[in-house]
């Protein structure tokens, strides 16, 4: 079957922070660019980010990018690539200042500079004590940033395709990426977008878990599309569970609350983090705090009738500070926990929040995959940035505020690289291979014709429960093994989902079924990668890899200081080495991680 084809120099899939930052690079360069997005740009989930964006501006106290780099490497439990981390931390001031120039309404210090607050794992002088590094607009930093970036794109006349869902990557026999197929939601039409550069900025896939801080639309579409086109996914076993999701609702309470002085307490009112992280206490790294909370709950010191949450207490803070620095949190707490934090503590539990792994890239934003004898060769025409990508700056555990920074730095660098590559190329657009288009049409056709099968809602729930029970904050060897076979069973159901809605017009049932086909790829990649990694590192902690003198924290650098690569075909795993050599400074040497 023939479908309409539209031709551009570049296509960006995603209009969150990463996609919008990349789009500025392309629009301002004059290349003909299309930005596809499932939702109006300011509805992307970057809008929900609260706490801030990291940069060692030093507006309130001394700071240095090298300290930031050290914290990020340590936070990553040494799985992060040190070249990319140096690149990001050195660029931070530049991209944050740029954002201010775009109109971002940062809070201000008395001197009129950007306001900065402390955040978990960000320290001065190579791990000494917490430092004010998170640049914030109250507790609505993501909202302020996403709107500022969108506004700048309005100024730059960026061409958006709003409520268009990309379905599959178009890749030819030589492995070159030539664009995407996409669905216009309003009409149901399928169109091929042909381009010389395709940039994925599709965000995270936190909806593979049952309890998540992520939006409904965070369904890992970029990862699913990449996996189906033969691109591996990197380090998918590493998921961040944020310590403070509202118990029951999943909605996030930013770490900025603890940055402003909030304290975690167990059922006896004890500030239990003093036992787990004597130095950083409530501002230890997220994986450390989440595990401490689960330990408290497991040992019977949880709160509430079922003893299944702990309390986040800010009742000792000046209500003025709460109203000025944390107004959104107060609103969320009243709305979703039914408590006013000025008067009562907030019930919280660790909640799935962020995907550290993703589509493998280098720090220039090019997607890289094994080819011949090399493990990291750029895939021609393909770039990725933001949460869907793995550069890898977050390694086994991301520090708060480093993601918004990642969007700015790597959105920009992916954009710059794409501009350079397109301007350099003298070739005309290649013909689109029919097979790639057929793959999309077959998926749509199956949904149109499937008569009996599995429900979308039920299969999604089965996936989310399996992930939650078998691959959560603490992991168990036998549970993981069982989880692998369970998730593969769910995958079979996902291949035979049935929808009642057959309409062409804004068919949200079809969209959800297509999204589930992406989610399940991410879930399978996660479970299989996690089952295989026989050590504890960062967010991945197993019962059979405990803390010992020989292997502090259960980390096994001898065998496991390497990135996982999962391939969809045959669920094959491969590994590549971690880049321990930074760009200009000496390697940050391996060390036990303690806060």
């Amino acid at each position, binding site marked *: 079957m023939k479908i309409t084809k539209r031709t551009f120099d570049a296509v960006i899939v995603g209009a969150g922070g990463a996609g919008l930052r990349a789009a500025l690079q392309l629009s301002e360069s004059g290349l003909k660019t299309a930005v596809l997005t499932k939702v*109006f740009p300011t509805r992307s989930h970057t809008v929900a980010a609260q706490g801030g964006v990291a940069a060692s501006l030093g507006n309130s106290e001394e700071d240095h990018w090298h300290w930031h780099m050290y914290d990020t490497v340590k936070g990553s439990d040494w799985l992060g690539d040190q070249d990319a981390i140096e690149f990001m931390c050195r660029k931070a001031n530049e991209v944050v200042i740029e954002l201010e120039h775009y109109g971002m309404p940062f809070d201000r210090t008395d*001197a009129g500079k950007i306001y900065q607050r402390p955040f978990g794992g960000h320290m001065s002088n190579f791990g000494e004590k917490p430092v004010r590094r998170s640049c914030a607009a109250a507790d609505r930093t993501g909202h302020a940033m996403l709107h500022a970036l969108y*506004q700048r794109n309005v100024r730059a006349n960026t061409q958006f395709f709003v409520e268009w869902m990309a379905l599959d990557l178009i890749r030819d026999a030589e492995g070159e990426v030539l664009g995407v197929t996409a669905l216009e939601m309003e009409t149901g039409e399928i169109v091929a977008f042909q381009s010389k550069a395709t940039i994925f900025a599709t965000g995270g896939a936190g909806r593979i878990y049952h309890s998540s801080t992520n*939006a409904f639309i965070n369904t890992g579409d970029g990862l699913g599309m990449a996996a189906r086109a033969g691109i591996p996914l990197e380090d998918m076993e590493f998921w961040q569970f944020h310590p403070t999701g509202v118990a029951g609702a999943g909605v996030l309470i930013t770490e900025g609350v603890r940055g402003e002085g909030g304290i975690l307490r167990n059922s006896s009112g004890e500030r239990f983090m003093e036992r787990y992280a004597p130095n950083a206490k409530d501002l230890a790294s997220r994986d450390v705090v989440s595990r401490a909370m689960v330990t408290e709950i497991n040992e019977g010191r949880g709160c509430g009738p079922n003893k299944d949450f702990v309390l986040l207490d800010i009742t000792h803070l000046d209500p003025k500070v709460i109203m000025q620095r944390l107004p959104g949190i107060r609103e969320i707490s009243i*709305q979703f926990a039914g408590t006013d934090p000025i008067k009562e503590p907030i019930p919280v539990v660790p909640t799935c929040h962020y995907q550290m792994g993703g589509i493998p890239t280098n720090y220039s934003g090019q997607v890289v995959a094994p080819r011949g004898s090399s493990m990291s060769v750029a895939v021609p025409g393909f770039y990725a940035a933001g949460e869907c990508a793995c550069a890898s700056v977050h390694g086994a555990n991301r520090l708060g505020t480093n993601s918004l920074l990642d969007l700015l730095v790597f959105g920009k660098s992916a954009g710059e690289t794409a501009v350079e590559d397109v301007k350099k190329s003298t070739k005309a657009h290649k013909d689109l291979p029919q097979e790639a288009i057929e793959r999309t049409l077959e998926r749509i056709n199956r949904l149109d014709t499937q008569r009996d099968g599995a429900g979308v809602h039920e299969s999604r729930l089965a996936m989310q429960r399996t992930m939650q029970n078998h691959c959560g904050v603490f992991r168990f060897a036998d549970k993981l093994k069982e989880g692998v076979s369970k998730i593969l069973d769910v995958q079979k159901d996902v291949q035979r989902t049935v929808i009642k809605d057959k309409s062409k*017009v804004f*068919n949200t*049932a079809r969209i959800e079924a297509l999204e589930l086909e992406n989610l399940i790829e991410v879930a399978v990649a996660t479970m299989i990668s996690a089952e295989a990694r026989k050590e504890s590192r960062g967010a991945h902690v197993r019962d059979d890899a405990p803390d010992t003198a020989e292997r502090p924290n259960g980390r096994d650098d001898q065998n496991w200081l390497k990135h996982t690569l999962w391939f969809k075909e045959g669920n094959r795993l491969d590994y590549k080495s971690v880049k321990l050599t930074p760009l200009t400074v000496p390697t940050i040497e391996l060390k036990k991680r303690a806060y």
Partner: protein
Amino acid sequence: MTTRTMQFRIYRYDPDKDDKPYLQDISVEVDATDRKLLDAMVKLKAKDDTIAFRRSCREGVCGSDALNINGRNGLACLTDLKDLPEPVVLRPLPGLPIIRDLIVDMTQFFKQYHSIKPYLINNDPPPETERLQTPEEREELNGVYECILCACCSTACPSFWWNPDKYVGPAGLLQAYRFIADTRDQATSERLDNLEDPYRLFRCHSIMNCVDACPKGLNPMRAIGKIKDAMVRRAV
């Protein structure tokens, strides 16, 4: 866990198959974990997947799920289920063309937003560091920059219903004020020129619907007043 059955009446229209819109009566079981209207709508959709609506963040920050709920505009994800009289009547936002069911065509709304040049204009060469702004100057943006572009206000405004092509509407005007109020912006007089027109700004008759409708507690009418003040000030 205690469950209860809730009755809904939902506006349905699929141009692909329906000659005209109709109201569907449907019920759903909700339990104690279903706090918000959106939770119930997700369950309704699991029961009948043909019901179409937009949603994303489920925490009141993305602006996707604005609806007319029992006759008032609001966000499904911030509307408490327990307070809703039944049957809960769900309709698309009033005054905008309907694409399908609860999904409206927001083109006109965004066109007005774009018409106010919603971006910082400052033609000085950017300094090496941030542009300075005192905490007091920054304070002026509070209650303004938080808008989530949900359109609850504009689609509750009679002036916008009658002239959606000519009247900027409360949401757009609130954002116009956001840039006028920003000490870093240099285009105040150009922005005021752009609004000095019998329709674009002066269709506002201070009916206050916008203030009642805003789920974020913002006050577009006050911002409109401040724009008018600025016009008076520059005239004298």
